[in-house]
């Protein structure tokens, strides 16, 4: 059964890069463009992993993560934060929120695959 990954980012570019990076693997990428949509998608789709941007309109990633952790059902879903801000304080703040890992933008596809692969088991799709 395919791994289900929820990509929450206001940038369509980043969501496309996530989908492209994970294309060789047996996984389904679900997309949301802000925290509000992300929470709704997490509740309805029950993904195996959430890739979550921090800075987004409507609802940012920190607020979404806080709400996620308050939900008895959704709090167990592992989260990897994607952030353009690598500062020490920012990283400490992220760590306190209980995320599994974080990835600083800019990143290469392979770095994303490695981070994701540490949290869920990525299985390559069979060749053509």
């Amino acid at each position, binding site marked *: 059964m395919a791994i289900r990954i929820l990509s929450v980012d206001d*940038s369509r570019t980043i969501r496309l890069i996530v989908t492209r990076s994970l294309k060789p693997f047996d996984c389904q990428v679900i997309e949301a463009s802000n925290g509000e949509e992300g929470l709704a998608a997490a509740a309805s789709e029950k993904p195996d992993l959430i890739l979550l941007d921090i800075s987004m309109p409507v609802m940012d990633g920190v607020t979404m993560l806080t709400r996620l952790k308050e939900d008895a059902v959704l709090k167990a879903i592992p989260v990897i934060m994607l952030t353009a801000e690598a500062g020490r*304080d920012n990283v400490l703040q992220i760590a306190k929120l209980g995320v599994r890992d974080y990835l600083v*933008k800019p990143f290469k596809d392979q770095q994303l695959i490695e981070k994701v692969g540490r949290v869920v088991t990525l299985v390559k799709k069979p060749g053509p």
Partner: protein
Amino acid sequence: MTHTASLAEIREFMIGHLTEVFSTMLSMTPETSEHTEPLQSASRVTGVVGMAGEEIDGVLYLHLTDEFANKATVAMLGMGPEDPVGEAEVNDVVGEIANMVAGGLKSHLNDLGAGCAMSTPGIIRGSNFVVETLPDVVRELLGFVCEGSRLVVELHIHSKGKMACYGNKDT
């Protein structure tokens, strides 16, 4: 205690960080250029990100020519040469690149003791426009050449509180 940041130091950081963003996301290597004047005549796409904090406010503009913005979009999204490049895709890619460049600057300023929040990116499209500064705002222009196209990073920094931002390339 007053924190200080020299423009020379910020400039050096920005050159290294922009190079990293471009090489990682676009597989392109920009080189610094002495031409720092705005891209006045070329039709351009400008990514804009604002920063605001107790010690410092600022705006980062990433000015790209229309042609280079299209090229960057093709590279970042892994599109083929025949794939149509839409304005929405270009805007999103330029905004995301500006966001990554500004994110690095924000982290750098944070480590210097000037924590600030960052806006989501915006886009300006047009030609022959100049962004003017308000009083007490330091303006810094960084010129680059990448794949034969000029690009300019324009920084407007307003330091306040216990953060002092000093110096320019002529001093």
